[in-house]
């Protein structure tokens, strides 16, 4: 393998890893504050991507042509709309089932994901077919040797890294972040300290869902195509990433995301079977990791969640 080809694979893996990490961070945040898994998270991501596409269609119909304005509007509308969606889910489905058996919460969120996925398929115009996603970023490519670095990919990577850094800053350095960590550590004590538990849960679900929406937009910009079922695989991968990193641990989620992307890339490139088996390989490794370390690589620690 040439160096240029290798660099191409690394770049591709890094892109995937960034998206997975964004999704996994959401899972880990939700688990931190409420000890639940939001199984519809992947479909929230798909909803974010379709919301972005819808916004773009609406704005171009209105005659907006400035790419910067379009991009900003698309990202903001998608992130805010999806944040609202996540908060509504938390308010109507997850909070009322607090204290119910884990299985019920799991099922409710799984089924909510199905509702969302089917709603996109049935009610978005042409939603049952893959939809073309507009290229909103400059696609200039810089060649170094045989390696082509596309400007849009570089921007996406930078944006993803910045977003994760911002989330980290928010969780560790702000008052709301402090409250989120307090709730994650001990809900009862946090309540007695005057923290509005319900509000914190809603904020956390909003933030996590907005991150998923950005991941959805990234996915659309990267592949130029979105699909109503895209959330299922991305959600399961994000969840797998959060779990192999260790639920409730922000760094674990990021590590898990890049690890899963690395597994897929290795499965596609370096192993002796056809590249179509890359997901089979990656999921088999996830199952093996779960068998070896049932609570993830970094492990669940009660003392430090989020």
């Amino acid at each position, binding site marked *: 393998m040439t160096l240029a080809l290798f660099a191409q694979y690394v770049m591709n893996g890094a892109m995937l890893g960034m998206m997975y990490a964004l999704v996994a961070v959401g899972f880990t945040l939700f688990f931190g504050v409420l000890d639940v898994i939001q199984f519809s998270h992947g479909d929230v991501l798909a909803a974010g991507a379709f919301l972005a596409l819808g916004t773009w269609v609406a704005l171009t119909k209105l005659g907006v042509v400035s790419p910067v304005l379009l991009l900003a509007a698309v990202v903001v509308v998608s992130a805010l709309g999806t944040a609202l969606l996540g908060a509504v889910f938390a308010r109507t489905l997850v909070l009322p089932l607090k204290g119910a058996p884990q299985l019920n919460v799991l099922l*409710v969120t799984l089924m909510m994901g199905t509702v969302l*996925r089917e709603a996109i398929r049935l009610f978005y115009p042409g939603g049952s077919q893959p939809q073309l996603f507009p290229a909103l970023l400059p696609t200039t490519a810089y060649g170094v040797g045989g390696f082509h670095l596309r400007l849009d990919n570089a921007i996406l990577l930078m944006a993803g890294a910045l977003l994760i850094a911002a989330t980290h800053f928010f969780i560790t350095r702000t008052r709301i972040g402090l409250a989120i960590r307090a709730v994650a550590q001990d809900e009862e004590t946090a309540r007695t300290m005057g923290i509005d538990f319900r509000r914190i849960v809603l904020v956390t679900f909003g933030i996590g869902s907005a991150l998923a929406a950005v991941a959805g937009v990234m996915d659309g910009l990267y592949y130029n195509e979105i699909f109503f079922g895209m959330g299922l695989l991305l959600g399961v991968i994000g969840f797998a990433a959060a779990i192999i990193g260790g639920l409730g641990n922000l760094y674990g989620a990021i590590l898990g995301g890049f690890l899963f992307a690395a597994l897929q890339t290795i499965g596609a490139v370096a192993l002796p079977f056809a590249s179509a088996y890359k*997901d*089979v390989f990656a999921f088999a490794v996830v199952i093996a990791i779960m068998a070896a370390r*049932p609570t993830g690589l970094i492990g669940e620690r009660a003392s430090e969640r989020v």
Partner: protein
Amino acid sequence: MTREGRERLAQALAIVFVAGLSLALREDDFALFLVARVLIVVIACLGLNVQFGYAGVVNFAGATFFGVGGYMAAVLSRGTGVPHLFILVAGGIAAALAGCVLILPVLRTRGHYAALVTIAFALLFRTFLEVNDSLGGPQGLKLPELRIGPWRFNEPIALGRFEASFLLNYVILALFLAALAFALVVRVDRSWIGVQLDAVRLDETSAAAFGIPIARAKITAFTLGNFLAGVAGALSAHMVGFIAPNNYSFGESLILVSILLLGGIGNPWGLPLAAAIVIVLPEQLQVIQEYRYLLYAGLVILILLFRPNGLVPRPLRRLGGA
């Protein structure tokens, strides 16, 4: 009449009802197909009921184990001369063996983590089928008709003046197997194994403190459940005559779980009713066919929020006495 006697009577009545219904519909292919399909799904859900309802082992790959049984049946009946009755059993065994791959991770993990293991397995299986050409790839495989001895299942029935569609054959076999599976599951529940499974589901720590072998209980439940799903899958594959990866998607697994939940988790008596509602309704109302996943998912959410024990909640176990 004792409770056991009442249950026997109810079982007999249910069988008579299905048999009578099938005879009345004997010339209506589509109706018979639906009856057989409901019975097959009941078998698979009985398996899931042992896992979710008794042992508390989550399995979101029900359709996957169903599919393992189906593909096993296809491979055996296309490539070998194994008698078809054994093929149904082989389908079950294949599914149980496939489940063995997951036993270690399922035993070691709990709750969400175990759910992830089964979901990952479901996606893995489906991707594998789609990219593996020797199993037909996305186009799937065709199966020959089912034969047991001189009994040829794809021939219309004609006994003297009595005539019926060939699908009645499948209904008879499915009814027989469903009754068998039902009796098995009810007896497991009533036995000490059932009591142990309940204890394991409700509180693993105290179950262990009472000397209940948790790992053995979970393995028993998981394997038995997958076996039933596999048998159902093999029968279904033969009846439809064709299998493809699309029939075994994650969405189908969720539908099986919806049926379980609608019927009342842990109570096999609600399953036939729930399966009939979930399978027959969209076929009769073509308008909602397109919306079925959406409607079921919504329905399950409402059940979980407002009637978490299902249509026919599980009665409390009474130990000792009648």
